[in-house]
């Protein structure tokens, strides 16, 4: 299918099915039950899952294939967001020009930063990219305030020109759309106690992610991808064979920067605001975490990692003491307070702590990330089935 081998087609198909049915999969609990707290199937979070999935897929093309650890990738995401919001302000609320510009600008930006940073490898490369990203953050945060609106973040306002759109007389801010199809419009499907939300914005992002994922498979399987892997395994040997790895690494860097720009553009298309925090080093570190958590160098790993981190950030951080007391309300008072005080540091504002513990466990016991975990489970089942089959074969003649 689409020039992929059977295994990759199956993977693409699986990802396609998962993303298309996400509103069902992520809302497994009835909306009025206590467990509804853990439902993640609302538009904003689903959009974040796939957008940060794109971001991590792009990062993985650089880090997973060439082994170059960029610590400044958030800068490209931020640049993409700012470009997109400026398009909304100046040109039109249609998301197409915004996304095109954000990818292009992020690509240019990556070309400049990559050209300088890729003169060094290893830790020096990481530090260089980190320095560039922090520089961009400082610029966006204060120096370039007329362009970025500083800490408040760049927002739409009623008197923006928007030269392609008809004059806005409604008195409220226009909304982002794709040829009239509003990003924020959604449709609720109520089946018994369950309620599923289908949002236009989410499906646009999901399609973008599927395209990005498909492109990444093609890159992984191409001769270009093979060359990138060669750079990762032994760059010196590659030099000795007379090949210059620089153009390849630069290309990978720019491609992954453009992925980040796409993610930034989509983020702004779903919610037209661009803040400088998007470029901070913590945001750059987050994508590294996502990729490592999911599995470096695997196709689907980064998407899983992105999903897990965003889930923790948005769901665990909202469990407060009142919710905890609600859960343990049936227990006697003493035990209830005891349990709440034990769990309290790990939820709500302590979600970072829980995430940190999970990250440590994954890195220690599953160096290949969540994907390795999945593989181990699959292997366990497969070998079990095999022994089952052998047993059956043995018992059959006796019947």
């Amino acid at each position, binding site marked *: 299918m689409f020039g992929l081998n059977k295994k990759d087609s199956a993977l693409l198909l699986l990802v396609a099915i998962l993303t298309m049915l996400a509103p069902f999969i992520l809302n497994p609990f009835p909306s009025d039950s206590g467990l509804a707290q853990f*439902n993640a199937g*609302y*538009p*904003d*979070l689903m959009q*974040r899952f796939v957008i940060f999935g794109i971001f991590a897929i792009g990062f993985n093309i650089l880090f997973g294939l060439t082994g170059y650890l960029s610590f400044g990738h958030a800068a490209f995401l931020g640049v993409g967001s700012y470009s997109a919001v400026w398009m909304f302000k100046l040109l039109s609320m249609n998301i197409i020009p915004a996304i095109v510009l954000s990818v292009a600008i992020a690509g240019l930006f990556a070309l400049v930063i990559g050209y300088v940073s890729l003169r060094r490898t290893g830790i020096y490369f990481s530090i260089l990219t980190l320095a560039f990203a922090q520089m961009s953050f400082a610029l966006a*945060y*204060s120096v370039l305030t007329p362009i970025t609106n*500083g*800490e*408040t*973040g760049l*927002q*739409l*306002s*009623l*008197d923006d020109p928007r030269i392609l759109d008809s004059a806005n007389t*409604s*008195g*409220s*801010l226009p*909304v982002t759309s794709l040829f009239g199809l509003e990003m*924020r419009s959604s*449709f*609720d*499907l*109520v*089946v*018994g106690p369950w*309620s599923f*939300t289908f949002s236009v914005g989410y499906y646009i992002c999901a399609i973008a992610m599927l395209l990005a994922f498909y492109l990444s498979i093609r890159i992984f399987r191409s001769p270009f991808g093979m060359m990138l892997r060669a750079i990762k395994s032994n760059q010196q040997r590659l030099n000795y064979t007379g090949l210059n790895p620089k153009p390849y690494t630069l290309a990978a860097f720019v491609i992954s920067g453009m992925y980040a720009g796409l993610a930034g553009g989509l983020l702004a298309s779903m*919610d037209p*605001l661009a*803040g400088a*925090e*998007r470029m901070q080093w913590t945001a750059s570190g987050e994508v590294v975490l996502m990729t490592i958590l999911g599995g470096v160098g695997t196709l689907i790993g980064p998407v899983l990692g992105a999903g897990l981190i965003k889930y923790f*950030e*948005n769901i665990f*951080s*909202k469990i*407060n003491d*009142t919710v905890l007391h609600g859960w343990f309300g049936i227990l006697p008072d003493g035990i209830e307070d005891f349990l709440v005080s034990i769990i309290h540091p790990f939820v*709500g*504002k302590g979600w970072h702590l829980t995430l940190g513990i999970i990250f440590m466990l994954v890195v220690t016991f599953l160096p290949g990330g969540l994907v390795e975990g999945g593989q181990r489970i699959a292997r366990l089942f497969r070998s079990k089935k095999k022994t089952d089959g052998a047993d059956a074969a043995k018992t059959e003649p006796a019947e």
Partner: protein
Amino acid sequence: MSKTNLTRRGVLKSGAVAGAGVALPTIFTASSAAAYTNEPTGGSVTLGFNVPQTGPYADEGADELRAYELAVEHLNGGGDGGMMNTFSSNALQGNGILGKKVEFVTGDTQTKSDAARASAKSMIEKDGAIMITGGSSSGVAIAVQGLCQEAGVIFMAGLTHSNDTTGKDKKANGFRHFFNGYMSGAALAPVLKQLYGDDRKAYHLTADYTWGWTQQESIAAATEALGWETVNNVLTPLAATDFSSYIAPVLNSGADVLVLNHYGGNMVNSLTNAVQFGLRNKEVNGKNFEIVVPLFSRLMARGAGENIKGIVGSTNWHWSLQDDASKAFVKSFGTKYGFPPSQAAHTVYCQTLLYADACQRAGTFNPCGVAEALEGFEFDGLGNGKTLYRAEDHQCFKDVLVVKGKENPTSEFDLLEVVEVTPAAQVTYAPDHPMFAGGALGTCNPGA
């Protein structure tokens, strides 16, 4: 004779078709009925409390959450009723809002616009919050106010002191109970003149975001009108924790007053640095060097400890006020938590009560109805004397307190003394004042 062929598969198939048929009407009715975003249909209504639980304003956020919980308790008829008993509007019955029990969800803004919007969005989309309130930073408040306008829910701004919140970034769905930079300037100027004279050179250190900018502009304008000179204005990043490198140049600038346009943890650190550098013991131009903190709260005073003594600033409310409403609020907050509330707590408590009262008076949760009930609303009995929510910009006008760090505090909470209560008339400005110009309120958006 007819023959019925009853197979297992056939039964399952027809069962599935029948099931789908039963489900169908609900599928089509679900999305059509709502007149506005998150119309509450059950016996309860959900409010979204979006406060900083981490970051430089975490102390304020924690106190805000306490006040929100207290307000919800009072709305649902629990506790002693607090300021519901002193509030001049008697619409609230203590049986929730419009007979619906009040429930709430909380989120962490992290004092970042992005995170705050994500958190508010999840409250609106996932938890069905009908109103969002909170925020301890103007940048965040403006970002979330924009979001609420787009989503079609009411935003009751918490701690936000920037002129822009009800100035160039004002929105029809947003309301602010707190005062603003202009009001601080107008209230402080006469007191500063009386204390420090009209021939001073001021050096500003300013938090680099909307609040810092507009407060600096307001204070500079008010003091320059007295005859003061503004020597320099230096912007500092919000995330900064050490200000020594910003303090050192002050010594050589020839300034004799340092204005710290900082709040929360920022102000605690910058004031501590300034005192460590011995600024307060210096004499410049033949006058004592003075430090002014235009906006401060008791929480900050506690953080700054000894250093706050004698420092002048303005505040929205203080627990030592002796009117009935303040006393009632301090009593019920103190009974529940064991210490007096901060101005942040007072503001958000009022916001929650005012929202509930507006729903009750409008007879609906529809944001447009609620906004109409709040616009031009005049009330008393919430601790600040007579108060008006102006219809033109949704800013609230009330008395402003000028306070000073107490020289001899009697307890760890008794840190501020009220120097002057500036009447509302003195801090009122025209809606088209240049500092608030640009931007438009727009029209109210009920969403769906």
